[in-house]
């Protein structure tokens, strides 16, 4: 038996291909939306992987350092280091901000997550991994290691708040949960950048402190200087990253920190849950809503096209029915056309998504599993969308082929 659907498609291939391309671009957008969600999840996982931590110690009753702000004294790490099962610890600060590149003809702003880390060696928690060019931070001040997604190159000069830094190393896939590239700078500089005020504010604060009778008491020499000194320096970090001894239960280490240090501690699983279920939950819901809308629009387009194509063949369908073609054959013809349209659309969509994903401003992760699921959904949508046309075709009276 010849394929009626195939012959019809070949007969009007131009119309079919153009419709398929239109549908394909829509499917490409749908696959990209799914890829954006996957990219966000992957960014979150990469952020956790790259931190090199097993535990995140943060301010009590906060979900920091990524989902909420958290502030700890920077000497907290000493007491954590003494807890059984802890291998390495590191203070760390995170601040998402605009980083300015300076230099002749190079001035531009980049949205980045500035990470303050102690200039320890490789393998310490918080250190940048995947160094693709240059070296790690070795000095205590004014050096930076940047992710290549920032567009910075070795030797570039960048400004963070009041200080200028030289890019000495480049990393890859070091991004925040929002996809912003990371810029690593020495911890002390990062603390300043995060908490230090500008000169005018410092002068105003000193004046206010000097005028306060409580902080500038007559007969207590040195008090004012001590207060001003404490106001001018910053001893806070956002989190302490902890690596535990191999084979140690993370909860067994976390529990005494929670109990005795009055801090919140999150394991890798808990932090993953915070990032994925809370931090990107709203974005995920938005994307899910877009996916539903795009699926409905795709279904409507396929239904409309197939219905229109079928209505254009009413007389032929009446003739087919009159000469003895079964309803099954006619329904099969329409169904095959709908599925063929879906196939063309899916192939175009997959190719389009693959081509535009790398230039998408956000990280798009196209997973084979999503493509398979997308394919199944497209076929199901096409099958459902053909129902309307099939119903119309089956209602055609064979007598329509005969005049009178």
């Amino acid at each position, binding site marked *: 038996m010849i394929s009626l659907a195939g012959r019809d498609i070949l*007969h009007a291939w131009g119309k079919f291909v153009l419709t398929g391309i239109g549908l394909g671009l829509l499917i490409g957008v749908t696959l990209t939306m799914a890829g954006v969600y996957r990219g966000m999840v992957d960014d979150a996982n990469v952020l956790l992987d790259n931190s090199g931590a097993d535990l995140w110690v943060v301010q009590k009753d906060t979900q920091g350092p990524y989902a909420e702000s958290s502030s700890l004294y920077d000497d907290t790490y000493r007491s954590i280091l003494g807890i059984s099962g802890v291998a390495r610890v590191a203070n760390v600060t995170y601040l998402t901000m605009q980083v300015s590149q300076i230099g002749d003809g190079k001035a531009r702003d980049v949205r980045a997550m500035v990470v303050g880390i102690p200039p320890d060696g490789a393998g310490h928690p918080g250190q940048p991994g995947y160094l693709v060019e240059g070296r790690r931070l070795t000095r205590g001040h004014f050096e930076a290691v940047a992710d290549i997604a920032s567009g910075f190159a070795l030797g570039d000069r960048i400004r963070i708040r009041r200080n200028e830094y030289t890019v000495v190393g480049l990393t890859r896939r070091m991004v925040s949960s929002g996809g912003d590239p990371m810029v690593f700078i020495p911890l002390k500089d990062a603390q300043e950048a995060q908490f230090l005020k500008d000169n005018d504010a410092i002068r105003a604060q000193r004046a206010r402190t000097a005028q306060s009778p409580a902080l500038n008491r007559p007969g207590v020499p040195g008090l004012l200087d001590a207060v001003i000194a404490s106001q001018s320096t910053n001893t806070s970090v956002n989190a302490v990253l902890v690596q535990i001894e191999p084979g140690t239960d993370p909860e067994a280490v976390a529990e005494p920190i929670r109990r005795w240090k009055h801090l919140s501690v999150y394991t890798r699983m808990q932090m993953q849950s915070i990032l994925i279920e809370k931090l990107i939950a709203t974005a995920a819901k938005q994307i899910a809503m877009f996916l539903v809308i795009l699926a409905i629009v795709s279904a409507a387009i396929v239904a409309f096209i197939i219905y229109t194509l079928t209505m254009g063949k009413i007389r032929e369908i009446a003739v087919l029915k009159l000469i*003895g073609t079964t309803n099954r*054959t006619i329904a099969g013809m329409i169904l095959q056309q709908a599925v063929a349209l879906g196939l063309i659309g899916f192939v175009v969509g997959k190719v389009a998504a693959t081509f535009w994903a790398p230039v998408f401003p956000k990280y798009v992760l196209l997973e084979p599993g999503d493509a398979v699921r997308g394919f199944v959904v497209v076929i199901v949508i096409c099958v459902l969308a053909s129902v309307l046309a099939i119903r119309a075709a089956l209602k055609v009276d*064979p007598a329509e082929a*005969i005049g*009178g």
Partner: protein
Amino acid sequence: MDKNRSDPSARGIRIEGLTKRYGHGDTAVDALKGVNMVVAPGEVVGLVGPSGSGKSTLLKCLGAIIEPTSGRMVLGQDVIYDNGWKISDLRALRRDKIGFVFQAPYLIPFLDVTDNVALLPMLAGVPNAEARQRAMALLTALDVQHRAKAMPSQLSGGEQQRVAIARGLVNRPPVILADEPTAPLDSERALAVIRILNQMAKQFDTAIIVVTHDEKIIPTFKRIYHIRDGVTHEEAGEGRGTN
């Protein structure tokens, strides 16, 4: 089929007291009021009548498209209707036992000429190669074999009608119902179509009923059924120009 062809009594159509009523009660309309008709194998008869006389209703009843109200229809030796359908699969009946030729050819636009003709046997389960062979033989008999690979849109009106006739004949049905097959054609081509129908009727022992009000072809029939107000009257025709 071949067995049927060797037995002429197994082909042809006989209609006895066929009635068709549309609607119920006071609004009921009797479109057919006891139609009698016999068409022998190899014979082409005309069915003529004015608009609203019941021609199309009779054609639809004969074509198993609508159900008559009462009467009897015998196709070859098979009683297909006797105050109710005696055949459960009317679609298969139409496909295997009745050929249709329409006013417009209504060829399937996305199939070439060969496949337009071969589609019917394929639907009946005949292997593609054999169906195409059968189609080609008919196209040759109708002198359109040179357009076998053409699409319907590339054919002239006369060629399209000949392909439509080939489609009606391809399953070698005992009866062919032709609904105004010459309406869109000029006199010369109209007569050519009637000549072809006569040739095919003889060649395949097929009973052919031609519904028409085309004055130029009415003289070609040897027998004519006039239908008026749902009743048929048989009369002898001139039988001119069909050989």
